[in-house]
Structures are given as structure tokens and as C-alpha cells.
């Protein structure tokens, strides 16, 4: 450092850690010090934090001024320019303050972007599959929705006036379910659910599931929601997070079909990474440990995907894999024309290629129920008919050795056969619940008591496409 520069910043001062330095009283150093004083006052952060920021900014200004002076700029002009590059003091302080408080919000934004990018890539890769089919068409499904109430009480109805308190609300939940209640008020109050708060909306014969949704809408508590679960004769009322921690599950999935689908159409990059990002991006992103959450984890080992997460996550993981697996069936099982003429699809747009030339289809006919895709363009025509049985899947989860997504055999699949195929046993099973999701609503299609499973002549319903079997 030359004499001019040393004079500007003074001799090396005594300093311990990032403590606030003494500032020179005159000249550019004074100007810098005065500007930093203003920033630090506006920061309104704890003293130690403020001093750290000040020291870092001062060091930046020192180096910047030095560089500008080396380039020939006069000292005062260099100082003014360096300060002006830092911008308005109030705006800078505001950015620092926001940096203190926005990590979670920004994290969610990042997750949304990652999930979207992965989703776009994956959905684009699988082409004309169920994800991009027309609403209402056969085979189009939505992932299972979050349930705030146990399935066995969620459909019971409740009636309360809008000025009823939350305390009264939970008492009513106990009354209509005929169960004793235990409320974890400490957990709920942390989220803003106070005993004395009014529910705010009249409830006239609404289901408990809907009633909880309405209360959750009233209290904007981010990703944390009020929920209830039945444990024996007790109705427990707490946060969804509380119940999630209790219901952790580890499930292994076979990713092979989904990965093949993406690779066949996309062929580049780490497709399993895209798939796992999609899962972490769309299923309660804030709960995944990789995203800064504390509950869910997933691991890839070869073609297997191990998901350790609350039980309610697993059907949606299955749903995602089922969509991609079906996508593969639609294209891989397609007939000879596909070998001669390749095609890719996204939404209602099909691009066909032959001899290295590509055209956009003029007309597309899509019939997922029959596994048939027809598209015509100038000089190119695609007719692909998939084996319909390969298009249908069911999923099995819970107390079975091989949970996952299975293709429906041509002759169909009965519930008991599906349990056996999934490595499950009838002994020790409390209950088997089969659910189906249509238009975003999950409904129970079959419910079989454990003791009925092993009985000869007991009901053994045939499964339908997209159904999820949960063996409890």
C-alpha cells in the first residue's frame, strides 16, 4: 500500500474480531465512515451482526478504492464512486434485513422452481401420458390429497355457528365422533390456534374434513395445519406435523419403468435426479431434509428408490411413479409405426420425425382408455396402439414386503391376489383399504377387515386402474 493509500485508511488499527473500528475524522475515510454509520443505524440488527456487516463493507470499500486509485482515479472521486456502487444506504440496509428473515420463503421459491423444472422435464419426456391427458379422460388422475381428518371420521358432519370458539369446535368433534378428545393446545397455540378464537365461518352439516380445512384457511399458519386422528377410542387433535412424525414409513419403490420412460424420450442428464427433484418439489417440499425440512428423506440405490417419509406421502410418490410408468407403457408397447416414425409429445402438440425431418402434427387423436394414439402431419403419420392392459396399474403399500406400483394383468387383478403378489400375508392384518383418486378427490372403494381376508368365500373385489391398496 502506498503512502497515499495508507494515509487514506490510517495506519493498521487495533482490532479484535469484527468489532466496530475507529473512524478517521477527516477526508475520504470520514466520508466512508459517515456512510457506514448511516447504513448501520438503518440495519436495526443486533450489535455483533451489525459490526460484522460494517467490517465487511469497510473492507470492500478499502479494496475498491485502492483498485480505482491504482487505475489513476483521485482519492476522493474513487471513494465516492466506491460508495455509490454500494447504492442507497436505506436500500442496502433493507436487503440485509430481508436476508435475515427470508431464508424459508426463498427456500420454498427455489424448491418450487426446482420442482417445476424437473416436472417440466419429466412431463415433457414422457409425452402423451396421463399427466398431459385431457381433464376427465379415463386414466387421468390427480395425486392423493392431504387429509386433515382420519378417513374413519372425516365424513361425519358437524354444525356450528360462526362465532363458536375453537374450544367449542373440538368439543363438537368429540361429540359427533362419539370419542373422547385430547387436544395438544401447546402445539396448536404455537401456530395461532387459540382456544378462544372464533371459527369465523358458519358450518352447517359440513364434513369434519371440510370443517378442518375451513379452520386451517382462517388461520394462515403456512405449511402447518390443524388435524385430527383417531387412536382407539380417543380423538386426538393436533398439528399435521405432529401426526406426520408419528406415522413415519420407509417404502422401497422400483424406479426402473419411470427412468426408462424418461430416458427413452429425453435421454440426457441424470434422469433419476430429475425424478427425485420432482418428488421433493411437489410433495410437501418444506418437509424434505434436503430442502431444509426435518421429516422426509429419499435415497436412490440402483433402480430402487427408498422413501422415508410420513405415510401420507407414499401414495403420492406411487402416483408420480405410476404416471411415468404408464407413460412408458404407452410408448414402449406401441406398435410398429413407432419404430419407423418416432414422436414426442407435450400437451396437445406432437412432433413426429422420419428420416431426420420433423413436423408438428396437424391432428391428434388420443384415446388413453384404449391405449391408442393417432397423429397425422404433412407426410408423416403415427398410429400407435398400446396393449391396454399395460396402461393400467394399481399400487400397494403398508404391511407388505414389496410395496410399489404394479401393472394390471390382462385378466384383471383381485384384491387378495394383489396382496399376495405384493408379498403380504393375511394373518395379522387389521384392515385393507382401497382408495381411488378422481378429479382430485380420494374415495374409499373397498374396505376389508383383516379377519375376513383369509376366509373362503369372503369378498375379493377386482381392482380398477389407479387404485391404491393400503394394508394396515
Amino acid at each position, binding site marked *: 500500500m502506498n503512502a497515499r493509500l495508507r494515509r487514506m485508511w490510517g495506519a493498521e488499527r487495533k*482490532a479484535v474480531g469484527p468489532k466496530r473500528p475507529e473512524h478517521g475524522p477527516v477526508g475520504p475515510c470520514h466520508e466512508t465512515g459517515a456512510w457506514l454509520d448511516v447504513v448501520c443505524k438503518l440495519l436495526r440488527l443486533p450489535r455483533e451482526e451489525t459490526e460484522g456487516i460494517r467490517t465487511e463493507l469497510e473492507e470492500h470499500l478499502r479494496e475498491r478504492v485502492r483498485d480505482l486509485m491504482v487505475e489513476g482515479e483521485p482519492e476522493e472521486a474513487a471513494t465516492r464512486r466506491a460508495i455509490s456502487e454500494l447504492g442507497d444506504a436505506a436500500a442496502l440496509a433493507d436487503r440485509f434485513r430481508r436476508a435475515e428473515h427470508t431464508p424459508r420463503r426463498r427456500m420454498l421459491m427455489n424448491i418450487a422452481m426446482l420442482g417445476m423444472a424437473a416436472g417440466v*422435464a419429466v412431463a415433457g419426456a414422457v409425452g402423451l401420458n396421463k399427466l398431459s391427458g385431457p381433464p376427465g379422460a379415463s386414466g387421468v388422475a390427480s395425486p392423493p390429497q392431504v387429509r386433515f381428518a382420519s378417513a374413519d371420521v372425516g365424513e361425519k358432519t358437524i354444525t356450528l355457528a360462526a362465532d363458536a370458539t375453537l374450544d367449542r369446535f373440538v368439543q363438537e368433534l368429540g361429540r359427533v365422533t362419539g370419542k373422547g378428545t385430547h387436544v395438544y393446545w401447546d402445539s396448536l397455540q404455537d401456530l395461532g390456534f387459540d382456544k378462544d378464537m372464533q371459527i369465523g365461518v358458519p358450518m352447517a352439516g359440513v364434513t369434519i374434513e371440510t370443517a378442518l380445512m375451513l379452520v386451517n384457511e382462517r388461520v394462515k399458519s403456512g405449511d402447518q395445519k390443524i388435524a385430527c386422528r383417531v387412536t382407539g377410542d380417543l380423538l386426538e387433535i393436533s398439528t399435521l406435523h405432529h401426526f406426520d412424525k408419528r406415522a413415519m414409513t420407509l417404502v422401497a419403490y422400483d424406479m426402473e419403468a419411470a427412468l426408462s420412460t424418461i430416458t427413452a424420450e429425453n435421454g440426457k442428464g441424470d434422469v433419476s435426479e430429475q425424478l427425485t427433484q420432482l418428488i421433493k418439489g411437489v410433495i410437501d417440499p418444506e418437509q424434505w431434509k434436503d430442502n431444509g425440512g426435518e421429516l422426509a428423506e429419499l435415497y436412490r440405490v440402483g433402480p430402487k428408490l427408498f422413501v422415508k417419509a410420513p405415510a401420507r406421502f407414499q401414495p403420492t410418490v406411487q402416483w408420480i411413479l405410476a404416471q411415468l410408468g404408464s407413460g412408458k407403457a404407452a410408448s414402449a408397447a406401441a406398435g410398429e409405426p413407432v419404430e419407423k416414425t418416432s414422436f414426442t409429445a407435450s400437451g396437445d402438440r406432437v412432433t413426429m420425425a422420419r428420416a431426420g425431418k420433423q413436423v408438428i402434427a396437424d391432428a391428434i387423436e388420443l384415446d388413453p382408455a384404449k391405449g391408442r394414439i393417432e397423429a397425422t402431419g404433412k407426410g408423416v403419420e403415427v398410429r400407435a396402439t398400446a396393449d391396454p392392459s399395460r396402461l393400467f396399474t394399481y399400487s400397494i403399500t403398508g404391511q407388505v414386503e414389496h410395496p410399489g406400483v404394479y401393472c394390471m394383468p390382462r385378466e384383471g387383478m383381485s384384491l387378495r391376489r394383489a396382496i399376495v403378489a405384493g408379498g403380504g400375508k393375511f394373518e395379522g392384518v387389521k384392515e385393507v383399504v382401497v382408495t381411488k383418486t378422481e378429479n382430485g378427490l380420494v374415495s374409499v372403494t373397498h374396505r376389508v377387515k383383516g379377519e375376513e381376508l383369509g376366509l373362503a368365500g369372503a369378498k375379493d373385489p377386482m381392482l380398477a386402474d389407479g387404485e391404491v391398496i393400503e394394508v394396515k
Partner: protein
Amino acid sequence: MVTREPNQQQVEIVLLSVLSEEPMYGYAISKRVAAGSDGAIKLSPGVLYPLLRQMEKEGYITANWETVKSDRAEEGTEGRKRKWYTLSAKGRTHLEQRVAAHRAHQRMIERFLGGSGAGAGGEEAAS
């Protein structure tokens, strides 16, 4: 040469990439980014330092203070303090995810660009 302020997402991926090479302090990072982009990316210090702080809070980078003592420092005096940033394991994972997402996004865009460009060719073939 066109210089522009990148958005925060772009700045973050650039900062993580730079720090994946070696630990650096703020001013060195801004110079490294400018040099690496031939001056196309100019990181305003008013954006850089709050973002570094945010990334530190999120655990993507770690920071430690180092004393900088010049040759001419007086005997018995301590040097200035400089804050060095290092990419953490979490930050490295995050960077990998961001890079993968960025590339997936790029590929998607290329699919459309390729489709429109090749579409014209297809029409030629058809005619």
C-alpha cells in the same frame, strides 16, 4: 459488450460455482465473477453482500474471519478483518441440484427451438 444485472437465482448459482473452486472473500468474488464473464456480469456489492449473508444463514456457505496484516503494520497492532466464504456440503448439493434444474430447463427450451427449426424442414420434406 452488454453488461447487465443478473437476477437473484442466477447470481446464486454463479456464487456457489465460484466458491466451489476455492474459498474467497467478497471483493475477490466480485472480481472473479467479472473476470470469468469477461465483464458481462457485474455484481453490485449492494446485491452481493446481502446475498452472501442469506446463503450463509441457509447453510450453503460458511464464513470465517481472517486477520489481514500488511508488511508495514505497526508492531503490536492487529490487522484488518476479512470475511472468507467456503462452500459447505449442503451448498455443494444445492449447487448440483440447481445445475441439474438449470440444464433440464435449458433442454426443454431447446426442444421447442429444435421443433420450430426442424418443423420448417419437415414441411420441405413433405412437399
